[in-house]
């Protein structure tokens, strides 16, 4: 009853084609944005902003990129952290070696570098699919691990293998405090989410979904598999590269190649699976789940008054994390996005049962 769209007539083409055709959706997203932009920086404390919201936003962006590749185009990729590393190190090198390069331009260039690397490692997808492609992307992951560790050019001949960045400034505004970092990330994530949503609604997105569902039939009706698959890799790696650059510059500040190891790849995959494959909203849900869950688990023994040493608590949290993922996959394999859309469907009829 709350969610019915009865009475909402569209009388222009642009009204019919908008992203949120139902008025309740538009009100909801406006409220979320009004809360996120002006209210959260005021009420949020430094811990929430810098340790929870910023990693959530950047992880959601990376999960968005991975969702485009795996959820929309159906190409399984286990090497996402490698593309994040390419983005982070490329951005670092552009800022280091080109005097006076603005941060945003370096992020875009880093994304383009990551897209190029993504196309190279996506070439196997033209001949192999499914699990074998996963092994090929594992090759990308380990190759990136090795390259950023062993080739001194990328880390500017750093003896410890780690790089660090100075303070950022965008359009003359300095991005130092948690509030400014949070707003910077939030703006970039919103822009990319809007671009991604429009991309998957349009011609290219439909080509990707056709390739995912039945690539032989897609080729029969005239969709070029080479173009679709390589653009999927390119767009996804661009977004993941920008997310990697954000991760390094805004969240970490200083990092070494081990920050983008295979654990990170698996974590992003978990976000995408739990959030829901093939759903922009799902990337955000999954990122929230994965970022917030360890915090929640570390607080629960404390709240229940059970005395646990720190080490046992952290191992227990690891185990509960894994078993929750297993439980979630058994109970709802389509992820949180499916739960969300089911809830919306039920809301249309509430309080009637059918």
């Amino acid at each position: 009853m709350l969610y019915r769209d009865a009475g909402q007539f569209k009388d222009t083409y642009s009204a019919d084609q908008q992203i949120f055709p139902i008025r309740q959706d538009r009100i909801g997203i406006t409220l979320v944005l009004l809360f996120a932009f002006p209210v959260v920086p005021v009420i949020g404390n430094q811990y929430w902003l810098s340790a929870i919201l910023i990693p959530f936003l950047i992880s959601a962006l990376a999960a968005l990129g991975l969702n485009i590749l795996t959820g929309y185009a159906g190409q399984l990729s286990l090497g996402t952290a490698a593309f994040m590393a390419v983005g982070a190190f490329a951005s670092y090198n552009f800022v280091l070696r080109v005097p006076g390069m603005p941060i945003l331009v370096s992020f875009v260039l880093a994304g383009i570098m990551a897209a190029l690397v993504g196309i190279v490692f996506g070439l196997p997808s033209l001949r192999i699919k499914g699990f074998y492609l996963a092994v090929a992307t594992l090759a990308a992951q380990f190759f990136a691990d090795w390259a950023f560790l062993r080739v001194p050019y990328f880390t500017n001949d750093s003896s410890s293998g780690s790089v660090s960045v100075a303070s950022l400034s965008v359009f003359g505004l300095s991005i130092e405090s948690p509030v400014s970092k949070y707003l910077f990330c939030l703006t970039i994530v919103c822009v990319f989410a809007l671009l991604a949503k429009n991309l998957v609604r349009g011609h290219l997105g439909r080509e990707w979904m056709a390739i995912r569902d039945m690539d032989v039939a897609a080729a029969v009706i005239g969709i070029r598999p080479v173009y679709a698959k390589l653009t999927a890799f390119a767009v996804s790696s661009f977004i993941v590269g920008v997310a990697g650059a954000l991760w390094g510059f805004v969240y970490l500040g200083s990092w070494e190649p081990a920050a983008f190891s295979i654990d990170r790849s698996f974590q992003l995959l978990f976000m995408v699976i739990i959030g829901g494959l093939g759903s922009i909203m799902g990337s955000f849900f999954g990122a929230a789940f994965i970022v917030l869950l360890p915090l929640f688990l570390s607080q629960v023994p404390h709240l229940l008054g059970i005395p646990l040493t720190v080490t046992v608590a952290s191992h227990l949290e690891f185990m509960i994390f894994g078993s929750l993922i297993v439980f979630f996959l058994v109970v709802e394999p389509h992820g949180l996005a499916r739960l969300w859309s089911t809830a919306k469907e039920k809301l249309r009829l509430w309080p009637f049962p059918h």
Partner: protein
Amino acid sequence: MQALQIFISGIAQGCIYGLVALGLVLIYKTTETVSFAQGELMMLGAFAGFALMTLLGFPFWLALFATIVVMALFGIALERIVIRPILGQPAFSLVMLTIGIGYVARGLVTMIPAIGTETHTLPVPYKDQIWNLAGLVLNVEQMVVIAATAVLSALLYLLFRYSKLGIAMQAASQNQLAAYYMGIPVKRLNGIAWGLASAVAAVAGLLLAPITFVHANMGFIGLKAFPAAVVGGFSSLPGAIVGGLIIGASEKLAEIYIPQFLNAPLTEAMGVSVNLAGLEIWFPYALALAFLLIRPEGLFGEKHIDRV
């Protein structure tokens, strides 16, 4: 001579990869699931053997037998409780589920106080022994790995060729529906396949333990079993072993000889100091990738062409 020595140690390492890949291919053939949990099952097998030998004081052969039985039962239970409910789901969810199982296993082991987070040595009777044979210095632990792999492969060959269970498993993997019609209990066979794969992984863990010691991160070695299975062919059990041997030998040889021969010429050619050390972390995958582009069905697999 040094090349032969490196080759032999590569073969020994490759036997471990081959055993883990064997379990992988076994599970794939019967349930069409790619299990990323094989590495962690190997780690659990090593820890189980360690617990039986040090905590319960079992002698070596009894501990070996008991570990195999315990891990086989664990594999059967795992299939029944966790895998069977979601067998019909898309393959991607199953893969992520097995990765999740790996996380749970690792978390469980590290949670055990004072044992899970330390590195332990497995008290095997042949520890630290060396044979001097015709100028070669052979590590007995590595020889045991090669011998045990050969024996296990022979046993499994006999199982699949001559026993009723083995023939039933082959039938179920070739055509599940026809196997159902012939009265073969396919669901039970899936459980047995998982139990067998866990037992093989446990043997691999016990064989690997004297070389790399028993610790909670042993499972990452299992990731190299994927290129081994790809090279050998995902639908072929002997191919898994052969693929493992190829990956192990080539990885070791590449680790030593590629930097030795290519560092100097590349440094001269490119003007910057080039150090190709440590490339064994991605060399097996590059090899698997080359195989995928040239011969996707692997050395022994069946051809399956889907031209688009």
